[in-house]
């Protein structure tokens, strides 16, 4: 009889403790989300699933590591890219995240004239700072990008639609 009462009492206490813990969890939930910061809040709602906007609205770490590839995905998805051997672009992000086509390495590259730089400036669609590659400029003619030429000039990486260089006669 005593054992039976003890069991019923113990089970009741455990069930009560579980329910109490649930109430405490629920009460604590909004405070945690308020204090922990947006990245680690339990629920985050994004207005879009576009990679550029996801990275743009995120932390500086994400912007510095992935924004360049998000821009390439947005403007030049499927295009081939020529990359100088000394560039510090990450091949796996070019193929996986940016979803570019063939990735070709080359030594050196075309020199840019003042005309080229003016053309690039006029068609710049994105600039930023990448943790690996440093400052970068992406210049394309929107729609139909088939090939991107990557050029390291000084400390800046230029990612240029090949048609722009052809147009400038380089």
């Amino acid at each position: 009889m005593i054992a039976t009462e003890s069991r019923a009492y113990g089970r009741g206490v455990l069930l009560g403790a579980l329910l109490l813990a649930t109430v405490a969890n629920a009460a604590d939930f909004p405070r945690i989300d308020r204090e922990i910061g947006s990245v680690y809040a339990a629920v985050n709602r994004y207005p879009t699933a576009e990679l550029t906007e996801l990275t743009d609205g995120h932390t500086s770490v994400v912007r510095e590591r992935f924004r360049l590839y998000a821009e390439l995905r947005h403007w030049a998805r499927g295009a081939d890219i020529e990359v100088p051997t000394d560039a510090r672009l990450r091949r796996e992000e070019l193929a996986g995240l940016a979803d570019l086509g063939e990735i070709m390495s080359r030594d050196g590259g075309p020199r840019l004239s003042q005309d080229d730089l003016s053309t690039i400036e006029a068609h710049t669609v994105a600039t930023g700072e990448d943790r690996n590659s440093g400052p970068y400029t992406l210049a394309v003619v929107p729609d139909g990008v088939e090939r991107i030429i990557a050029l390291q000039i000084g400390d800046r990486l230029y990612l240029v639609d090949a048609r722009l260089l052809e147009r400038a006669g380089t």
Partner: protein
Amino acid sequence: MIVEVLVVLAFLIGGSALAAVYGVRGWAVPAVGFALGVAVHVGLVGALTVASLPSPPWLGVMLTLLGPLAWWGWRWHQGDDVPVAPIPTLGVLAATVGLVLAARAANLVNFTPDSFRYLTTAGLLNGGRLDDASPFLLESRVLAVPAMHAPAGLSGELYLRSVTPLLALSGVLVLVWLVTVGLRTFDGPPSPTLIAVAAAALLVTTNRFVFHAFYINGHGPLATWLLILGGASWLAVRRADEVGGPQLTLLQATVLPAIVLARPDGGVLAGLVLLPLLTADGVPARLRWVGLGVLGLTMTAWQGFLVSFYRSAGGDVPFSVTALLLVGIGAVLGALSVRRLGTAWLPRRSLGLTELVLWGAAGVAIAFDPQVLLDSARATVQNTGWEGGWGVSLLMLAGLAVAVLMATDVPGRAVLRFPLTAFVPLAILLAYLRGNAYRVGPGDSLNRMLIHLVPMLILFLVASFPSERWTWRRSDASSAVAMPSQGES
């Protein structure tokens, strides 16, 4: 949108067909089935990848749908009991489509830098360009999460918005199913249904569980699959697999490859969950070795693939890869030994010895560099309180776990207890193996890894309800009821 609906339905239908073949019944078929379907898809993509075969996303999805359906159809044709109720089935399919559409509209998703690395691998899988991956990317992010999201590329998207939350929902329902099946012979009060609802409520109000339910990372999926793995062991010691019950060996074998491919530490955690089966009383012989064998084969295949990947990239093979390869080979040999020799030769206190070895190894590491432990302990204490986003959850769960361990006796409970307590020295060892102390903040790796075991911890708590002893003094129990011998508890 169409692609996401079709992919999720393929995971659901294929997995549900498997669940039905495995003896899961009623409302639990789609609940368990979705987690199984995603696991099958991950396992197939993993197998194709390791075999260096093309693994376009549509192929994995189609095989996930058609393979289990064919098996179900064959069993049905044989006249086996694999029921399907048309009206509820249509209702579940319609509800799932509704959930996918709602998830797409809401776009509730949690990203950290790691998430984008997972999506990089998903993009590589989608484009059939895994050769462009660095070995470290494959080693650190493995394949499960990329495989889950790769089909998004079929419609030019980056990730599937509904698959992670639906897998978390599946995990909650799996918990309910495990409790109701495992406690079916428990008279109560409280009733098994009330206990199951209380367990689910405790889980879904845990802030970090909700975070991981929307987080593009392997933690949430791993927690669900580990719950199935450990829960199946618990059902076995509860004798729930007797006539008419679920086929637990097949359940475990299905989720094990996904566990190994979910996180780099997945295989080791699975090992901790499977070890207690070796010494648990009364479980079927094949349950002792099949899971261990599948774990070993998957780890050996994946780590062997990584070895060849590192070598072909011209790099040195890291110690972590070699060590996990050896663990995998050891698991295969262990499974063969158990199959041939049984488990009578194993020491009765194997679990205690294993924990002792883990603590010993941690002790040696601590002796060499106590600062890593001190910094890790300081950070973890802060994280399990307010800094890690757990609020009062972990402290309450840990307190309740200690209380039920001391105040109750439940035969065979070691299958759930051991992975929880052995994880403590393992976490210390992992800090040393990675060479850095854990740090303060919600993004710390140990802080995120804790979610792997939270559903199992809740199952452990509610598994104590059938206890006959409810007193702090063990001697009192003997007068209440004689406990059957069930090995370590």
